């Protein structure tokens, strides 16, 4: 009985050990490579509980998720227009062929080292063909696509696929940024001057226009005034002519009389020859 129990336990233990060696779990985020005495046998890319030959086969796990590759230091590249630019990139990649990946780079650390040089050279090559304007423009996308395709050619041989390469930062190197600052300052000075000068210009224009408008307005008023006066005079003349024209002879008599009345003041002295109609009866008429 006791011996039987012990044997039973040993058998259970043996089964457990075998099972634990034969079973392995591949997680959602993983893929695995089954190797037998160092020789790769097959890849497992579906998650779940998996089997292998116990004891003689081993499993190596690889990441299945998208990995980021972010170089620590930006690369200083010379552009087509001879400008220097410090460019930081980042790339995202996947291990698509665990077998090749294992054979060529073995692990992620080594893979990243390889990627570093591959991305770097592809970047320099592409940027050497481009000017700063292009990098800043919408063409950035085509630049990054080209870099990605370049990198992919080599990455595929390492069992990886580059999903995208993005320009994370593109900056002037420290040396040139001082020059850029100076340029920015001078540019601002130019704009400031322009503002001040255009201010003077506008102000003078407005003042001149004010002066002009004043003269024109007053002159216009004067013209209207003369026109109105002229029209008034003409109307008055017409009225007089119409009225007095009925009998010019009588008018001149009558008007003369009026004028005489107004012409002589109390203080005036007249030397009169008593002839004429007024003095007609100065002497008694003879008949």
């Amino acid at each position, binding site marked *: 009985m*006791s011996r039987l*129990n012990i044997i039973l336990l040993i058998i259970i*233990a043996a089964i457990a050990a075998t099972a634990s060696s034969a079973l*392995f*779990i591949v997680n*959602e*985020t*993983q893929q695995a490579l089954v190797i037998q005495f160092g020789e790769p046998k097959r890849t497992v890319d579906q998650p*779940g*509980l998996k089997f*292998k030959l116990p004891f003689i086969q081993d499993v190596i*796990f*690889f*990441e299945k*998720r*998208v*990995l*980021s590759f972010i170089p620590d230091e930006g690369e200083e590249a010379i552009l087509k227009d001879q400008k220097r630019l410090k460019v930081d990139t*980042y790339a995202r990649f996947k291990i698509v062929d665990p077998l090749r990946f294992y054979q060529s780079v073995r*692990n992620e650390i080594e893979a990243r080292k390889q990627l570093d040089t591959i991305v770097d050279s592809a970047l320099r090559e592409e940027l050497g063909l481009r000017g700063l304007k292009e990098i*800043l423009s919408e063409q950035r996308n085509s630049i990054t696509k080209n870099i990605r395709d370049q990198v992919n050619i080599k990455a595929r041989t390492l069992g990886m696929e580059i999903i*995208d390469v993005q*320009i*994370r*930062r593109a*900056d*002037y190197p420290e040396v040139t940024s001082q020059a850029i600052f100076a340029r920015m300052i001078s540019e601002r000075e130019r*704009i*400031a*001057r322009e503002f001040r000068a*255009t201010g003077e210009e*506008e102000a*003078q224009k*407005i*003042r001149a226009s*004010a002066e002009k*408008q*004043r003269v024109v*307005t*007053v002159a216009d*008023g004067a013209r209207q*005034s003369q026109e*109105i006066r002229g029209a*008034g005079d003409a109307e*008055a003349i017409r*009225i007089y002519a*119409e009225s007095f024209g*009925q*009998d010019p002879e*009588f008018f001149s*008599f*009558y008007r003369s009389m009026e004028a005489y*009345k107004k012409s*002589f003041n109390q203080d005036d002295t*007249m*030397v*009169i*020859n*008593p002839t004429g*109609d007024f003095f007609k009866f100065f002497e008694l008429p003879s008949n």
Partner: protein
Amino acid sequence: MAFNDKSGGPWGSGSGSKNGGSGNNNNPWGGGSNQNNNPDFDEIMNSLRKRFGKFYPSGPSGNRFILLIVFIIFVIWLLSGFYSVGTQEQGIVLRFGDYSRTTQPGLHYHLPSPIERVLLPRVTSVNRIDIGFRALDGNSNARRDVSSESKMITGDENIVDIDFRVMWKISMAENFLFNLQDPEETVKVAAESVMRGIIGQIKIESALTDAKELIQSQARSKLQELVDEYGAGIEIRDVQLLSVNPPSEEVIDAFNDVQRARQERDKLINEAEAFFNDVVPRARGESAQLVAQAEAYSEEIVNRAKGDASRFNDIYKSYLSSKDVTVKRIYLETFEEILGNVNKVIIDTEVSQSGVLPFLPLPELNNKNRSISSGGN
């Protein structure tokens, strides 16, 4: 480094451990939250063996005791499958590492480890990524600038210093957990890339002034596009520009001077306009005055003419009725009036004709002398 080289990984390869891997806290899969801390299988066996050895002599009762212990352990193992999902969390259940189901907040059960396990990402909390600066002590007012992140080249090849913040949350827990190795870092570098892409097409002038809203909304949508492309399971809630400045003190001064110059220009123009507004209405007033005066003159002269004409007409009418008498009457009345008032010196014609020259002290006669020929009509 979550990369698992040979065996020994938390996912229990073939290394004999049945402990389903609850260690390795650096790995997001470590999930301290799973509650299946059942003792190591080997330990159980050992303790069983010990107990077995100790109690063996007591016969069948010992056997029963061992079975009881095994049963209790089994029950505990089964119970270890209960887990609760917090209100901010979602439960992602994996069966042998394979995604099985998503559970909502509340108490749930999964088959005990190592068959199933659960991950509990916080899906409702909004996360924050600061770019261009780091907040000190969580106080967002105290900031340390990270100039390598914040300096960007604008479309007109100037440099601008931008600090911004990205707010994001998990929108699809499965994607978030399974698609990207480092989603948060990915969001950050993608945000940097997107922001530089946008700033690279904007002039510094507008980046500093009126384009902020535009930049924010563009950055948000482009970043969302990019993370969607990555299948990151992330929703970009907001991109906020916290500060946009010229790159250095001297340059800031130059920019401020431009602002001042602009103000000065506006001031000059305003002053000139004030002058304009002062002068032109006055001129209009002057002009209106001239016109009004002319109108008054015109009215006056016309009315006077009408009056004179009307008076003449009346007199003329009566004159027509008896011409001679009226003429005489007017004549005489007029001279009556004139001669009635003025000083007169009357010299008889005959006297003058007689050759005598009369003495006439004209200056004495009030210095005002008029001679008139009385020759009349």
